[in-house]
Structure formats: structure tokens, C-alpha cells
């Protein structure tokens, strides 16, 4: 026990004197978590708070295009800027750059005429199907010319789909209104009353959003709830930059030769490193969580809500840290040089993070990637944290994620042991 304690003290002393290693383990993840949360929060704010600037060039002179622009305004996603109707493509894209707008829409010249024609056609078909005589059926109403949507390529696909969805809703509203008006006029030979039109078109059922949580009391998750746990895991695994290098340095340095001639098994040294660095990972998590709770609100970012099961959070953090440390030691044992350890370590962590769902959520991955994600320890770490942070679960609720994580950790320990044996290091 004394040997282990002396080794832990030694490892701690070596660690605190490694300024670069410490900054990689603490400063870098803190910067990362702040930047990523801020970016995601800004994206959220862009859509929901600040509104996305959109330029509209209306070449139509009828009422449908005006209704469409009103409907786009009502969606709440966009801040509409009107452009003169005679703008060509270059002028529109130029204006987009000038106004820093990511989107531009051109409404075609005969938009109203075609919307009306199509609406009459649809209404006529509907009347015919009711068994009523329709005098409004036009055989060749033709399709409505498409709206042209210009977008900045930096706009992510997901966001673009969201924009398209909003525009389709606006378009649908305009077409439905015209169809309703036509139907009403054909039946009653008078215009559709505004109140009825409003009731028919705008009285949609409300959507109640309720996050599914284990305890049923969870508030809507924010960018901090998503990002802080994810990047805490990344930080934990990034101890490889210090620990993997430390194992290699010890292995190739003279000190290891001395250690091999002393009556103590090197496994004591590895056990000490595990204890020391697991403590570091727990400290990393404590620092990053504290940042999320207390510093984020001061920076205008959403605050991190800590799970109710604090002991559970500690156990999950401990197991995630143990896995991260085991991975770092394993890489350190097999690497021949510091460069190998750092290079492989950094790249493999990014890959494990990517397939583990830290960068893109696992549910958005295709089937083969989802299968691969099961092999990433970060995936199980993230699922366990999400179980606590996002779903309001307790330790027992995330055991299903911890068991694979422990199995991966034990496998890493076993591989390390055989690596040491094969290299005659123990």
C-alpha cells in the first residue's frame, strides 16, 4: 500500500509540473465546451430569437404573393427584406451578401394567376366529386411556377430543410385559402367571410411539447444540457495526450530500466496512474459542470441543470473516467514513441467521438454507423450522461449503458496486460 501511495504521489507531482499536459486536459476542454455551446446556442437564437434574414423579390403583382409574404412573416423564423421586382439573379445574390442574408426568394411573375387557376381547378374537382355542378373546372390549369430559393452554402442541410418546411407551410396556406374561397364562392355565390376564413385556416390544434423524462419534472433541454456532458466526455478521453505520453516517456526513459530492477511489479505503477488520472477526469468533469452551472449564465448562455441523482452522476463520471484512462494507458503501452501516442491518440479520440455520437447524434446516423457506435466507449458514456442530464434518470436507469462501458474498459485492461507481457515489461 505504501508503494502504491508513493507512486500516486510521484505521478501527481509529475502531472502538476506538466504545464502543457494540464492545459490540454483543463483549458482546452473548457474553451471547447464554451465555444461549441455558444455556437449551438447562437444557431438556436438565430432561428428562434434573432430571426433569419430573408430577401424576397416579388415579381408578381397579385394578392397571393402578398399573402405568401405575410404567411412567411407569420412563421416567425424570418426577418423579411423586400427587393425591387426587377432584380436579376446577380443582383439578388449580391444583395444577399450585402445584407448578410443566408436566404433569398424569387416569387414568379404570374404567381397569383396560377394559384387562383389551380385553386379553381381543385375546387371544381371537389364540387364534381360532391355531385354538384361545377362551372369553375379548368381542364388545363397548369402547375404553379416554382418559387426560387437562393441560399448561402454555409447554411447546414438540417437548417435548410427546416427553412423549406416553413416555406412550404406558407405556400400551403396561400393555396388552401384560394381553394376555400373558390369553393365557398361556387356554392354560395358570395365571398368567404373573413372570420370563417380565419377560423378555417388558422385555428390549428396547438402542439404541447413535453420532454420525455424519467421523473416527469424535467424542463426543456437547452444547448448546455446537450453540449456540456458531450464535451466533458471528450475532455476525459483527451487525457490521452498527457497520460499516453507519460506511459511512453516512462517506458523509453532510463527510469523504466531502474523500475524493472526494483522488487516491485510495474503493475503498481499502472494502477497508480489509473488512480491519479481517474481523479483528474473527475476533476475535469467537476470543473466543466461548474462552468455550466455558474459561469454560463454570466456569459449569456443557458445554465446547466445538474441531475437530481448526484451520487449516480459521480459513479457515471468515475466509470467514464476509468474507461478514458484505460484507453490512454493501452495506447501508451503499445506506442513506441511519444509522437505515435499523441498522433494516434488525438485522431482516434476524434473518430471515437464522431462515431460515438458526440458530434452528430447517434439517432441521425445510418444503420452501419449506429452499429459501429456501439464499439465507441464515448457512445456509452454519452448515453449514460444523457440518461441523467436529459431524461432525469437515476443510476439504475443508466445501468444498461454502464455495463457495456465497463466491459469495454475491462477489455482495454486485458489488452494492456497482454501488451505489457508481450513486450516483457511486467
Amino acid at each position, binding site marked *: 500500500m505504501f508503494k502504491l501511495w508513493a*507512486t500516486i504521489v*510521484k505521478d501527481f*507531482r*509529475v502531472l502538476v509540473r506538466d504545464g502543457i499536459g494540464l492545459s490540454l486536459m483543463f483549458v482546452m476542454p473548457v474553451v471547447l465546451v464554451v465555444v461549441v455551446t455558444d455556437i449551438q446556442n447562437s444557431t438556436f437564437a438565430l432561428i428562434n430569437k434573432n430571426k433569419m434574414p430573408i430577401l424576397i423579390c416579388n415579381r408578381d403583382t397579385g394578392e397571393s404573393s402578398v399573402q405568401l409574404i405575410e404567411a412567411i412573416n407569420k412563421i416567425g423564423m424570418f426577418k423579411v427584406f423586400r427587393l425591387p421586382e426587377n432584380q436579376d439573379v446577380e443582383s439578388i445574390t449580391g444583395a444577399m451578401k450585402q445584407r448578410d442574408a443566408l436566404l433569398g426568394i424569387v416569387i414568379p411573375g404570374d404567381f397569383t394567376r396560377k394559384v387562383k387557376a389551380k385553386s379553381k381547378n381543385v375546387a371544381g374537382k371537389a364540387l364534381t366529386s360532391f355531385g354538384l355542378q361545377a362551372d369553375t373546372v379548368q381542364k388545363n390549369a397548369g402547375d404553379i411556377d416554382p418559387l426560387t430559393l437562393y441560399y448561402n452554402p454555409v447554411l447546414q442541410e438540417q437548417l435548410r430543410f427546416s427553412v423549406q418546411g416553413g416555406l412550404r407551410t406558407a405556400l400551403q396556406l396561400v393555396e388552401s385559402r384560394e381553394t376555400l374561397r373558390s369553393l365557398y364562392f361556387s356554392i354560395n355565390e358570395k365571398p368567404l367571410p373573413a372570420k370563417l376564413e380565419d377560423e378555417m385556416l388558422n385555428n390549428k390544434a396547438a402542439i404541447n411539447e413535453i420532454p420525455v423524462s424519467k421523473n416527469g419534472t424535467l424542463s426543456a433541454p437547452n444547448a448546455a444540457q446537450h453540449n456540456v456532458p458531450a464535451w466533458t466526455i471528450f475532455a476525459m478521453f483527451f487525457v490521452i495526450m498527457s497520460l499516453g505520453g507519460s506511459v511512453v516517456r516512462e517506458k523509453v526513459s*532510463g527510469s523504466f530500466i*531502474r523500475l524493472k*530492477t*526494483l*522488487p516491485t511489479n510495474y503493475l503498481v505503477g499502472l494502477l497508480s496512474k489509473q488512480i491519479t488520472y481517474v481523479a483528474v477526469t473527475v476533476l475535469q468533469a467537476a470543473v466543466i459542470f461548474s462552468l455550466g452551472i455558474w459561469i454560463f449564465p454570466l456569459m449569456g448562455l443557458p445554465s446547466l441543470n445538474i441531475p437530481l441523482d448526484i451520487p449516480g452522476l459521480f459513479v457515471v463520471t468515475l466509470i467514464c473516467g476509468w474507461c478514458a484512462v484505460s484507453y490512454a494507458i493501452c495506447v501508451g503501452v503499445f506506442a513506441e514513441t511519444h509522437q505515435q501516442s499523441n498522433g494516434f491518440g488525438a485522431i482516434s479520440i476524434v473518430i471515437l467521438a464522431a462515431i460515438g455520437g458526440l458530434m452528430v447524434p447517434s439517432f441521425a446516423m445510418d444503420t452501419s454507423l449506429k452499429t459501429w457506435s456501439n464499439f465507441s466507449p464515448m457512445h456509452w458514456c454519452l448515453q449514460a450522461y444523457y440518461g441523467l442530464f436529459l431524461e432525469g434518470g437515476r443510476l439504475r436507469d443508466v445501468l444498461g449503458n454502464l455495463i457495456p462501458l465497463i466491459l469495454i474498459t475491462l477489455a482495454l485492461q486485458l489488452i494492456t496486460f497482454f501488451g505489457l507481457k508481450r513486450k516483457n515489461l511486467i
Partner: protein
Amino acid sequence: MVATDALAVHIANLGFHYPGNDGLTFSNLNLKVGKGERFGLFGPNGAGKTTLLSLMAGLLSADEGSIHLLGLDVGKHNKEVNKLFGFVPQDFSFYEELSPVENMEFFGAWSGLTSHQIKTRTGELLHILGLENVRNKPVDKFSGGMKRRVNLAIGVMHNPAILILDEPTVGVDVQTRHAIINYLMELNKKGTTLIYTSHQLSEAEGLCQQVALIDDGQIIVQDSLTELLKEHRQESLEELFLNLTGKAYRNDV
């Protein structure tokens, strides 16, 4: 002839080669060093000195034959054997970011000493080796000579019965060399067997009673220095060395 139970080191019919390397090979190598002797192993670069010391220290495993330290087989009783000897490698074998005291606390614990023993020995050794005033400073700021003294101090922390030294004075100034050699003589007077290798032959002449010359993995001669000089009609160890190993360059690849 030294009786077996009076031997500190007994190497019998040793065979060794580096895996996948056609270079240095030991074949049927035999060597005996008595308890309490100051034994010097000399040879040109690549002759096998460091390899032989590494085999004695259990850092390498013999292919054939046996190595016994104070009657214990190095290959079979590694942990027990490791308590018997101290090893001072040619490379600095400590944590440069730590101070001498911190290094000695750690290596002392790994040598099996108690906390109290470590404290006592650290105080003694830092005093003897002139490192008291830098005891808490990180070693990476030390000169080469100071690092050599730290290297030695760690090697003798647990008062080993046998001390294996691989070029312990390489690259140091005259004062440090003098201090190290004096300290080794002191240790030997207290009963420590010294197994020593160096290219400083004049230094070795003053230190070693028994000498072996090794070349190309073979022990060429082994006897007391006085006897060898007499037998080969040479004035100094350096002359004897050149006479027996030749004057051609050795390229150790």
C-alpha cells in the same frame, strides 16, 4: 578459485543473442565475482559490457546457462534477487521533473524501504554526495555531474549487497568523479560488492581489484589487475586493454 557460497556473481555457460539481430552473441560465457570485491568489466564499444550487466540485473533473459547473484538464480527469483543489488545505469534513470528528495522517496518505496528508512537514507546520501543544498530543486535544472550523483544515490538507497554500475562517471568533472569514486570505495569497505564498467581506465585502475576484459561477447582475460599486468608485462590497464583488444576502431552498430 573462489568457493561458490563466497560468490557475489556466478555466471555459468551463459548463452544470449538479441532476437532478430545477428550482432552480439554470448556463447558459453563464464564469470565469477567474489563477495566484497571491486570488479571491473572493460571492453571496447559493442563488446557486450552493458548487455552483460543488463543480464545480471534481469533486464534481459539468458537463452542458455545461468546467472546467480549471492546464490539466487536471476531468472527464477527475480523479485528476491532485485532486493540484493542496486543498479546505476549509464542513462539518467530518474524523473527529471522531480527533485532529488522526491525521486528518492519514490524509488526508495519501490526498493521496499519504509517511510522512516527513506527519510534517513535520503538525508545521509544527499549529505555524502553533496546534494543537500539542492535537495528540493527539480533535477532537470542540474548539471551533468549533479545528475550523476542523483543517479548513484537512487541506486544505493536500499543498501544493496551488490552494486552494478554502468559507466557511473561518464561526462562528469574531476571533482564529481573524485567524490563518486571515494563514495564507492566507502561502500565497498562496508561490504558492498562493486560490479563496475567504464572507459575511464585510469580511474578503474584505482578502483578495481579484479578485472575482466570482454570483446565480441567473450571474456578474454579475468584476474586481479596486478596479476594481469604482471602476466602480460604491461604498465597500465590502458596498455593491457590495447594490447589485448587491438587499436582498430570499433563501430558499434
